[in-house]
């Protein structure tokens, strides 16, 4: 009987409805967590797998020695390599084509590379506008590497303890 009285009192005073209203009011004054993209972005980890780049050594020599380990490990077969012997006797690539449409940004090539040549930067805002732009040639990859070298070095420094 007590339960019935409680039930009907709650019904007639709209008790549960008022509880719900109180909750939303609390959220109303609680402030929002919206990020204003593109002015603000969620923070990215140094291990973020974004756009690819080819690195160089400090003296300007390209790191890639055309071992083709990255080509072999790539699960999407995105990398195409042709190599030759350079004038000074070292083995270097003549062609290092990376099809960005095929690439799945898995990072296996970065893990496979023995000289830390192919790396993934944390850049995710790279839109392609022309047909054919999806094949990143060696020159383009080296150029991206030169642009992002400072950041790449920083991220690798941060992640060194865990690799």
């Amino acid at each position, binding site marked *: 009987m007590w339960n019935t009285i409680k039930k009907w009192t709650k019904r007639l005073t709209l008790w549960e409805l008022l509880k719900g209203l109180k909750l*939303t009011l609390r959220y*109303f004054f609680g402030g*929002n967590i919206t990020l204003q993209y593109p002015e603000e972005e969620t923070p990215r980890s140094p291990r973020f797998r974004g756009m690819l780049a080819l690195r160089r050594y400090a003296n300007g020599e390209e790191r890639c020695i055309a071992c083709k380990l990255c080509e072999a490990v790539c699960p999407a077969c995105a990398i195409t390599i042709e190599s030759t012997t350079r004038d000074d006797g070292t083995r270097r690539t003549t062609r290092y084509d990376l099809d960005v449409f095929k690439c799945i940004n898995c990072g296996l090539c970065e893990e496979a590379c023995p000289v830390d040549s192919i790396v993934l930067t944390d850049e995710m805002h790279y839109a392609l506008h022309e047909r054919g732009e999806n094949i990143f040639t060696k020159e383009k990859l080296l150029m991206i590497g030169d642009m992002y070298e400072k950041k790449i070095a920083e991220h690798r420094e941060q992640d060194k303890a865990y690799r």
Partner: protein
Amino acid sequence: MLDQALTLLWTILKIIAILIPLVLCVALLTLLERKVIGSMQVRIGPNRRGFKGMLQPFSDVLKLIMKELIIPTQASRYLFIVAPVLALAPALGVWAVIPFTKDWVLANVNAGILVVFALTSLGIYGIIIAGWASNSKYAFLGALRSVAQVVSYEIAMGFAFVGVLLAAGTLNIRSIVLHQSGGLWHWYWLPLLPLFVVYWIAAVAETNRAPFDIAEGESEIVAGFHVEYSGIMFGLFFLAEYANMILVSALAALLFLGGWLSPFAGIPYLDQWFAWVPSIFWLVLKMSFFIFLYFWMRATFPRYRYDQIMQLGWKFLIPVTLVWIVLVALAVQMGWIFH
């Protein structure tokens, strides 16, 4: 002759003075709703157009005006086009009898509440005709549901009005507000509390707003009775809905919360400190509270199922109002509370 022309001109100016702020309010309300509901959902509403999104309603209207008006092939053309106007005209017409302060009312008719009731009932025709003329299953279903819902809740709302009528002894809205003068506790929300709550629930159901928005049930039958409407015709329905919202809030403030009367009226020092506040401010403040309540309820409650709506309207609200009207009549007759 010149006399009449001047009166006519003056009336037209008064109408413009009511309608322009009203339409601006409606535009602002669309934005405010999105921002308030956004805040309750831990996000911000639109904020890219203009400062804090203030120009959003205008870009919305511009978009709607520039859209193609699509009339379905087998639809009844003229009914289809006239329906939004039928929905909007009564919503705007009722404002003639709403008093904003003691001296500001366009038409101080002695049967003010009756006019309000009649004109809001006319608004249903817009919905029925829209649903019928669309020649679409979902529009038809939405219109039927909406009509049944509105007609049922009109009765409950009517009884709430009857309670106010008994308490005040007059149908003239200005007089009803003046009968509530004297202080916060003289307003009709206190003695007529159940009627107040019933009126509010019925009003939310009348305007087809959450949680009673089965008619436009956004997630169920797409847009209900206005699913086939595009462009500015849809915009007119939208306008009518928000104008009705503001109207109903104004009525709630006038009939139950003392309209333009200051809440500090009977209190010894406070009423002098706040005597300088223009009375229209109090009315707007109370209306704003009710409009906020609309948004608050939309953000909080899930939608009622159709049979639950019918049940609530007929089996719960009407008996509550009937019981309370008897009590009020007794109170008036015995001279207990109302003078």
